[in-house]
């Protein structure tokens, strides 16, 4: 405490003595501050203003008017928006158990004392560094209808009882297909987060449980799971936020179709903003997206606080 105070006093004295130093500090932090102001804070604040105007994408002779909350009213009256919101919710509900479950299971397997652990971890993590565009090329071929690899596997496993599925062309299947490829691409990240979480649980806890006669399942329920609570919260929140921002794979593979079954909030925003050129309207969608992300992030903070105490 006293050390800190004396350092602070000296720093303050130094500042008074030395305007050159202050100058230098300002110059060092200025690039970051300027860039953040121009490319993050400014567009962010601007999006609130634009969302309450009728601004088009390309400037027109008619002046841009302030129209209050009209854009929001129109969005909330547009069934396509609710479809997109429902779709990303649906996507989240499916992708959470698939992706996090896969990640958790692999992490548990890799946490054992097995040979070539690093090699295996590297293999499992490989899809996570693969660009989504490349993932779309790969899965675009896997999803081929009617005789692509996935349909062959399904046909083989069901001994021909299940008809080939039009993975991306059938409104009932399209979102599920997007879930599959998204989970495959991203679960490696959650896996290493879980691995880090597992490594954070002290061995003494397991030893103590073993001495108390706890079996494998009991140790899992009473040592592993409680120890991973913050990790679970983090993984769930990150995955949920990512899921709500779903865009690339949908834009490339389905363009929101068939019949709107894979339309997402971000895709809806880009479509209204750039295809229909309604910038104000699209900005209002982006504000809504921000509010959703913010709420999830705040929820995480609340949950973490509850678990950490």
């Amino acid at each position, binding site marked *: 405490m006293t050390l800190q105070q004396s350092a602070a006093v000296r720093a303050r004295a130094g500042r008074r003595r030395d305007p050159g130093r202050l100058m230098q500090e300002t110059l*060092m932090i200025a690039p970051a501050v300027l*860039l953040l102001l121009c490319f993050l804070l400014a567009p962010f604040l601007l999006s609130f203003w*634009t969302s309450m105007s009728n601004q088009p994408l390309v400037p027109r002779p008619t002046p841009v008017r302030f129209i209050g909350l009209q854009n929001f009213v129109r969005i909330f009256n547009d069934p396509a928006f609710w479809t997109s919101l429902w779709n990303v919710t649906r996507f989240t509900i499916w992708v959470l158990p698939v992706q996090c479950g896969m990640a958790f299971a692999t992490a548990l397997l890799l946490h054992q004392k097995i040979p070539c652990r690093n090699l295996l971890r590297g293999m499992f993590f490989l899809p996570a560094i693969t660009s989504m565009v490349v993932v779309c090329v790969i899965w675009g071929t896997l999803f081929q209808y009617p005789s692509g690899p996935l349909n062959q596997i399904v046909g083989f496993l069901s001994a021909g009882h299940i008809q080939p599925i039009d993975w991306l062309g059938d409104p009932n299947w399209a979102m599920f297909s997007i879930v599959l490829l998204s989970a495959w691409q991203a679960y490696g990240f959650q896996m*290493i*987060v879980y691995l880090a979480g597992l490594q954070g649980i002290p061995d003494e806890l397991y030893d103590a449980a073993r001495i108390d006669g706890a079996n494998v399942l009991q140790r899992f329920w009473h040592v592993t799971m409680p120890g991973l609570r913050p990790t679970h919260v983090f993984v769930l929140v990150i995955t949920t936020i990512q899921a709500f921002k779903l865009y690339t794979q949908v834009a*490339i593979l389905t363009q929101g179709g068939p019949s709107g079954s894979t339309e997402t909030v971000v895709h809806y925003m880009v479509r209204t903003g750039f295809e229909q050129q309604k910038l104000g309207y699209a900005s209002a969608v982006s504000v809504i997206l921000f509010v959703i992300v913010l709420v999830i992030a705040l929820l995480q903070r609340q949950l973490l606080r509850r678990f950490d105490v």
Partner: protein
Amino acid sequence: MSDIALPHVVVAERSGKLSFRIVQTVCIFIIALIVISPLFMLLIASLKDDRFQILADMGSFRAFWVSNPTLANFKEIAHFSGELAYGRYLFNSLAILAITVASGLVVNSMAGFILAWGSLRGKVVLISLVVALYVIPQESIIMPLVVMMSRAGLTDTFAVQILPWVASPLYIFLFYQFFAQLPKELYEAAEIDGASIFRIYRSIYLPLSLPALATVSILMGIESWNQYLWPTLVTQTDYARPIAVAIATFFGQDSIYWDRAMAASVLMMLPILALYLGFQRWFVSSFVGSAVKG
């Protein structure tokens, strides 16, 4: 405990455990191979010349085997001008990545250093502002940003794909955290010796921050490499088009040239894969690092 009392039981138990381990390891390897098999399939398919054969092979084990590998697909697409200028797109992506990461390291590390050790007034406010800004997703600022950029006449340039993503709250915060946990004595000793704050940053703290530099390089690099939405909105011609956007155009055609798309995808994977194989441990720890602090 039973080691002493009943050695033969233990041996049996151990060999049982050993065989269990072997089975377990084999199982995990099989799962891992299944998981990465699509990537392997991509590589194999890119070496096949006939795009209809590629699709026909997909449903069988021939997807993992190529009898007469050829680089014809790569030769076909890796031009630097014309319709299939994937050489150029790859170069564009690499240039954008290199400049973004290099300038990002300088800008974010300097800011993080000042936040950790500077004596500026309002430092605490700045730190909490950086944390708050981290919540804003890229997707929710691009609408006004596109308009700002086109008014500034930056559409279809390299600058428009680099400038907005150089400074980032996450990376500033990662550097801030890293610098702040280095011992204070380093700073004080250098200050007593009369070193300027830039000198202290440049000659003392920066050389010590290799882990932070590696983490931020990898995260920034992957982020820049995988950008898709932003470049689709701000590039129109070949001039600065990155390879991700170019590959996506394969899907716009009526009949997809899978052979070319596969080759272009392999082209896009190679640089990252090479880096990943070289620095795997760094990659993994970087992603963990970004997560724990998130």
